[in-house]
């Protein structure tokens, strides 16, 4: 090989060098036969820090948490076969929430692919429906190009996970080839659009300026495209109410006076009422998910819908948009702001609309009852908010605690709230918190979880000790699968089929066995004190096991099959089940 200007590297070295050159800081992974050569090459590198998890699913969630908190691409390295299949839930989680990830999976040598070799799995095939794209690399010299493309595809357009499958023979340390990492990526079949079409912008602005009962409805797209500032400016310029999806919380500050709360299945009364009565809905980076719309046939009958999304497939998928705008949230909102500046028309006076919204607000749909002898979950989240001054990164698992954490902790900034919104993956919260804490070691990072979810990735307590990742685990322990139980109480005549967790471990002792600090609270009067103690231990992982009322329900709750604003509100009857 006479390629003088390109260093000669083995495939394994190319993998590591590519990651280094692309600026990867953390690589979450687990070694195995097919990736031994890559791990050997990792041994010498000093730029990429590898975090050895205890289960590959957790590697993906940790990389995902890192990606959600920073906006960078999360990176994962696993072996073939079971290593690869264990990543599937994590990849699907990231795919549903549009999170940029690159998952490098080992593969059996190209010479035996298809022969059912030891630890062989068709990873490209298995992951196909849940990735943005995937590569099966067949030559060592193609490795840097494939990895560079993977990172580019993962983070551009609508972000998502990309799999790079690496057969063992192409990473052979004995065979060297010129290392050539492309500086610029140009894929002729992949050109994500960025700016909105001027004609559509003009139409959108006309609607916005003339709306009498508008709502701005935004989702994860605001977070992904860093459009929080622009969104807030637009809302303030037009004096419009803003509601966020579960994925969009923090897109505008939860403490902003124009924020009317989350919408959808467990949305606030004012958010769902405003949506239903709206004459114009300005939807940005949200996808009219079934957990938002309720019955699509009855959805917001009077609304003219402007829908901005970087992904054309999200537009008019479930709800027909009147003014579709394909483009990145940030760029489109900027275009709209510029257009508003350049016109002479003034926005409509919305004082009557605000008066109506404030009446709905006065219903206080998030009010809840407290007791002297037992803690209720809502209190736990409010205590967490107080103790962390509203500044913590909060990750959550899936279930009632997730809804409480979404509703009772007003997130002031984007990326502060991290949860598996689309796939609803139990076991997500704790490993995701590890990724967040590694990205922001000085910040408070809390994983709000429950006794069901936490047991789905509890093995990561060991990882946290090995790498000193002092997250705080806020375990809302009701000895049951609370959300399942709530549905059974409400829709299955109280038949609590298999939603009760008998024989829970002693979480305090378990945490201590892993070398961390465990605390338990049962008394409402002690809650704030224990929470403060836990968060004062800056350099220790603390597992706070909080024993709560077993019968709490999440309210408001949409009535299935109804309009967006058909809701059950909290009342004594609802609580009694």
């Amino acid at each position, binding site marked *: 090989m006479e390629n003088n200007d390109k260093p000669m590297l083995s495939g394994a070295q190319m993998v590591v060098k590519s990651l280094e050159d692309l600026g990867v800081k953390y690589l979450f992974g687990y070694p195995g036969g097919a990736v031994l050569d890559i791990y050997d090459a990792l041994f010498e590198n000093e730029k990429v820090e590898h975090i050895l998890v205890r289960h590959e699913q957790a590697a993906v969630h940790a990389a995902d948490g890192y990606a959600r908190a920073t906006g960078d691409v999360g990176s994962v390295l696993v072996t073939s076969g079971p290593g690869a299949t264990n990543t599937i839930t994590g990849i699907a989680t990231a795919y549903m929430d549009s999170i940029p990830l690159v998952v490098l999976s080992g593969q059996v040598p190209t010479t035996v692919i298809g022969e059912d070799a030891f630890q062989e799995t068709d990873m*490209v095939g298995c992951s196909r429906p849940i990735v943005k794209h*995937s590569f*099966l690399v067949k030559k060592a010299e193609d490795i840097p190009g494939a990895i560079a493309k993977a990172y580019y595809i993962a983070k551009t357009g609508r972000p998502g996970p990309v799999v790079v499958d690496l057969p063992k023979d192409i990473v052979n340390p004995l065979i060297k080839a010129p290392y050539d990492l492309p500086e610029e990526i140009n894929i002729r079949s992949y050109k994500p659009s960025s700016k909105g079409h001027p004609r559509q912008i003009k139409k959108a602005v006309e609607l916005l300026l003339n709306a009498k009962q508008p709502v701005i409805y935004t989702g994860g797209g605001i977070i992904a495209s860093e459009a929080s500032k622009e969104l807030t400016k637009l809302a303030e310029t037009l004096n419009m109410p803003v509601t966020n999806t579960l994925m969009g919380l923090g897109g505008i500050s939860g403490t902003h006076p124009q924020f009317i709360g989350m919408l959808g299945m467990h949305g606030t009364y004012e958010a769902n009422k405003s949506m239903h009565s709206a004459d114009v809905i300005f939807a940005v980076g949200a996808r009219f998910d079934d957990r938002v719309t309720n019955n699509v046939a009855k959805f917001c009958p009077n609304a003219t819908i402007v829908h901005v999304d970087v*992904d*054309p*497939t999200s537009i*008019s998928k479930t709800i027909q948009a009147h003014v579709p705008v394909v483009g990145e949230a940030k760029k489109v909102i900027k275009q709209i702001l510029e257009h508003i500046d350049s016109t002479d028309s003034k926005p409509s006076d919305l004082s009557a609309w605000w008066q109506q919204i404030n009446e709905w607000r006065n219903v206080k749909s998030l009010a809840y009852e407290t007791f002297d002898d037992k803690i209720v979950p809502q209190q736990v989240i409010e205590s967490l908010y107080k103790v962390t001054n509203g500044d913590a990164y909060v990750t959550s698992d899936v279930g009632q605690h997730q809804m409480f954490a979404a509703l009772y902790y007003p997130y002031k900034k984007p990326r502060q709230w991290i949860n598996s919104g689309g796939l609803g993956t139990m076991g997500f919260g704790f490993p995701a918190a590890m990724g967040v804490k590694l990205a922001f070691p000085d910040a408070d990072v809390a994983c709000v979880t429950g006794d069901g979810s936490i047991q789905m990735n509890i093995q990561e307590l060991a990882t946290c000790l090995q790498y000193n990742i002092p997250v705080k685990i806020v375990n809302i322990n009701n000895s049951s699968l609370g959300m399942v139980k709530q549905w059974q109480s409400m829709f299955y005549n109280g038949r609590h089929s298999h939603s009760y967790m008998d024989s829970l471990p002693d979480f305090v002792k378990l945490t201590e066995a892993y070398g961390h600090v465990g605390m338990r609270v049962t008394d409402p009067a002690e809650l704030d004190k224990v929470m403060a103690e836990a968060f004062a231990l800056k350099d220790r992982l603390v597992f706070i096991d909080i024993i709560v009322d077993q019968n709490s329900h999440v309210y408001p709750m949409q009535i299935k099959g109804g309009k967006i604003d058909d809701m059950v509100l909290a009342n004594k009857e609802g609580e009694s089940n």
Partner: protein
Amino acid sequence: MRRILSILLENEPGALSRIVGLFSQRGYNIDSLTVAHTDDETLSRITISTRGDQRVLEQITKQVNKLVDVLKVRELTERPHIEREIVLVKIFAENNEQREEVKRSADIFRGQIVDVTARVYTVQLLGTSEKVEAFIDVMRENATILETVRSGTVGIGRGEKSLTP
């Protein structure tokens, strides 16, 4: 309603499976599918015959377009176009009368007999899917069909407008 989609995509391993996977995973129909590389060997062209109302088709088109390997998607049935399908029909014709009938029908449809044995004729026919269907119906009435194989529809737009990268 029947629709024909023309898809121009990278001629890469796995690209076809992404298209097919998308259809099955989202519950879209495939009536027929053809694929081969184009005059540019780095590109493949797929013709998919599918069904659905305007809304479903819009989603299909957008979803296919979203695949990283896909360069262009066009609905052929939206504009003037030419479509063709080839069929090979193997027919059991026992007596002279049947053989005559097969020969005559093949001529009427402008098909060609491409293989003959003592008792079997194989007819090749080119045309639109409707013509192919009609031919098969006629053959079924006249003789015993042993087997048929259809290529699936290929199509191309009329005039200068072309599906190129």
